[in-house]
């Protein structure tokens, strides 16, 4: 079941027009398989993607480009109980999956 999601990358364009990721510490809630994460994380200082779906996180980790290995991490966590200290991130992305 092959699908192309946002081949024009409109989502990425809008995301970048709403936020400058340069050297930012980013938390992405609902990262799923990391499709969106891979499109912005390069310029961030560090990006943490969280999701409840362990299988999706496994795919996200496998598909993570080698150049992002040191700055992008995927964590199994729920948004109602974030395993991070106060004031850890400069920005958060609440990416509602569908």
């Amino acid at each position, binding site marked *: *079941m092959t699908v192309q999601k946002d081949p024009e990358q409109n989502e990425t364009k809008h995301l970048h027009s709403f936020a400058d990721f340069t050297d930012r510490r980013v938390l992405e809630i609902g990262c799923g398989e990391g499709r969106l994460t891979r499109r912005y994380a390069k310029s961030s200082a560090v990006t943490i993607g969280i999701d409840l779906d362990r299988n999706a996180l496994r795919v996200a980790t496998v598909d993570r480009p080698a150049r992002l290995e040191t700055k992008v991490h995927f964590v199994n966590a729920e*948004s109602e109980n974030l395993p991070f200290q106060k004031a850890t991130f400069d920005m958060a992305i609440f990416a*509602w999956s569908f």
Partner: protein
Amino acid sequence: MVHALNEIRRVLVPDGFLIDLRPIVDQWRVEVISARETRETGRVTDLPLGLADDTAANQAMANAEAHGWFLREHEEFFSIHYAWDSASKMEEWIDEEWENFVSLDEETRRATRSAWALANADSQVRVKVKMLITRWRKRT
């Protein structure tokens, strides 16, 4: 949901911000596209759960704003496409992946299959999904 927003607020630095990025059900357009033309073949049908999800998300963000946790800075609607190589693959995806919030009626299925069958070999079937992006600034 409101508790999650409070958690996000907690882990953000003062003056940090939240990007809320989500699809909005809105009878998304179904199209068959080729090098020659783009033809609308129908619309998806919004299901009650999809509409309820949007309402709940809007309400949660409104509550967060009312609590003084976040300030709405900027908001835009835009569209993204989901594209498939055939009408049947599009139907399969909607029936399996989006079954809870949108559906396809028989007329749209027939029109899409027909338009795809008559189009060039390079044609695709796509759905134009409405998106909402909002930047919220953390209030201290």
